[in-house]
């Protein structure tokens, strides 16, 4: 799948933003009054910024409001609803906190749960796709949620949360990469099942339907630059998981190191998300004899 910057930014920053909102919702940390402003500002900026980035992926954004209509079947529609509802709930929570100095823990907890559900709906846009076996598994959602919690913990400068959730995310990541590498073959998709010609013998493409490229190839059959995948996985793993955990262990409550941890984590997760798309093979590639 094409690793478009818009979807990479969308998933990375909305994940971090909603992850941070989760922590703020449960009161870790629990700043009061105007001191709370920068915390909520960062969380909302990331969540909203990510959502805005996602609209750059739309071919016809003028109809964007219609995306709220199909929540019965569509994960994208559910994501739109959950994002707006979560931002509203947490907006009230934040405003009461900042301007009125009123703390509303029940609303915060509801908002925190909603933030995690929002991240889940984002993950399901990918995890629901049978056409992309690497994504089509519940561990895709698990990793998105653990990363939101882990990234949120770094933003919350919470050492225990960082170590716990980034650690769990690292374990999930190892499984996701390993099982993901095998899933396409395991599902039994092949050029033979795609064409139905397997009974006759071994199938290969003889001539493509078009000499140039097309939307299908540029969007779904992304084969360039995958050769650096292993190197990039190692870099992503060190930056996104190992380094933030070490920095969290060292710093305890030293705020400076959390900024460093956040920077390396974001760089690592950007690389991880690039791989998430670039390594994902869509079954339509079988009709072109490439994956």
């Amino acid at each position, binding site marked *: 799948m094409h690793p478009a910057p818009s979807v990479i930014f969308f998933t990375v920053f909305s994940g971090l933003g909603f992850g941070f909102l989760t922590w703020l919702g449960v009161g870790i940390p629990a700043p009061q009054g105007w001191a709370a402003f920068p915390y909520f500002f960062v969380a909302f900026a990331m969540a909203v910024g990510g959502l805005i980035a996602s609209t750059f992926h739309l071919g016809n954004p003028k109809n964007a409001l219609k995306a709220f*209509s199909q929540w019965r079947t569509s994960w994208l529609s559910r994501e739109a609803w959950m994002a707006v509802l979560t931002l509203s709930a947490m907006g009230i929570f934040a405003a009461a906190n900042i301007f009125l100095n009123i703390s509303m823990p029940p609303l915060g907890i509801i908002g925190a749960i909603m933030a995690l559900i929002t991240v889940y709906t984002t993950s399901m846009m990918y995890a629901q796709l049978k056409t992309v076996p690497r994504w089509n598994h519940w561990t895709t959602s698990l990793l998105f949620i653990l990363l939101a919690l882990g990234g949120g913990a770094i933003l919350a400068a919470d050492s225990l949360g960082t170590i716990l959730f980034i650690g769990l995310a690292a374990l999930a990541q190892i499984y996701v990469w390993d099982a993901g590498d095998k899933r396409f073959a395991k599902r039994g*998709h092949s050029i033979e099942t795609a064409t139905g010609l397997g009974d006759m013998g071994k199938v290969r493409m003889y001539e493509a339907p078009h000499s140039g490229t097309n939307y299908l190839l540029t969007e779904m059959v992304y084969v360039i630059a995958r050769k650096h995948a292993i190197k990039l996985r190692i870099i992503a793993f060190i930056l996104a998981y190992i380094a933030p955990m070490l920095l969290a262990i060292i710093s305890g409550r030293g705020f400076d190191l959390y900024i460093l941890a956040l920077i390396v984590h974001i760089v690592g997760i950007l690389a991880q998300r690039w791989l998430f798309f670039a390594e994902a093979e869509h079954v339509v590639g079988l009709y072109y004899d490439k994956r």
Partner: protein
Amino acid sequence: MHSLSMKQFMVTGINDMTQLPQTTDKKLGLVIDLDTCVGCQACVISCKGWNTENYGAPLSDMDAYGANPSGTFLNRVHSFEVQPDTGGCAQTVHFPKSCLHCEDAPCVTVCPTGASYKRGEDGIVLVDEDACIGCGLCAWSCPYGARELDQAAGVMKKCTLCIDRIYNENLPEVDRVPSCVRTCPAGARHFGDFADPDSDVSKLVAERGGMDLMPEQGTKPVNKYLPPRPKDTLQEVDASAPILNPVAETPKGFLGWLDKALEAL
């Protein structure tokens, strides 16, 4: 004028939107005969020709006269080569591919706007371009590459089963079939109702073992593909022998008498 009543054709399915109909009254679709298709690409051109000037946004081309041309098509013909497991010559199979109007169409349920829908009355899967946001999720969910986001209009394009031909009373009856079916010079594309077991398409599927593409995706395609017939095999004999053998060793009848008479001279 043919697209005059397009809205009227399309409006019925929209109520259910992206919830798939439990069943459809008809199951309109295509049978594609992989034995007969010669890979001439006529259906590709006629599909583009009809659909670029009728329903919805035109099917745009990008950099059409430049170094890297690309464009939107609703139907494309791939060509494969099959090497038999038993050895022998490889067989070329031309393979037209357009939307299969799946019964369990994942492209419909993923759509956030209701732009993608499957009609309850005939099972045709359509896009309402006025509602589409061009998110591309439906194209991602289609295993067959049957949907292309038009790069000029920014909306999703797909095979409409030529809905503006098949019900179009402004056209002569012979033309009330999809453009690709009408055009195919080899008769490799057939249009009909799969819900009717006595229809031509249902009979073809039954007789020739019509198959689903990528059945493991669970999409239950309506369109069926007829597998190529096995290739003729030649007997292992000296093909020239019967031609070169003398017709008769010794002449008989008049020629025999003449032969003998001349010999005697």
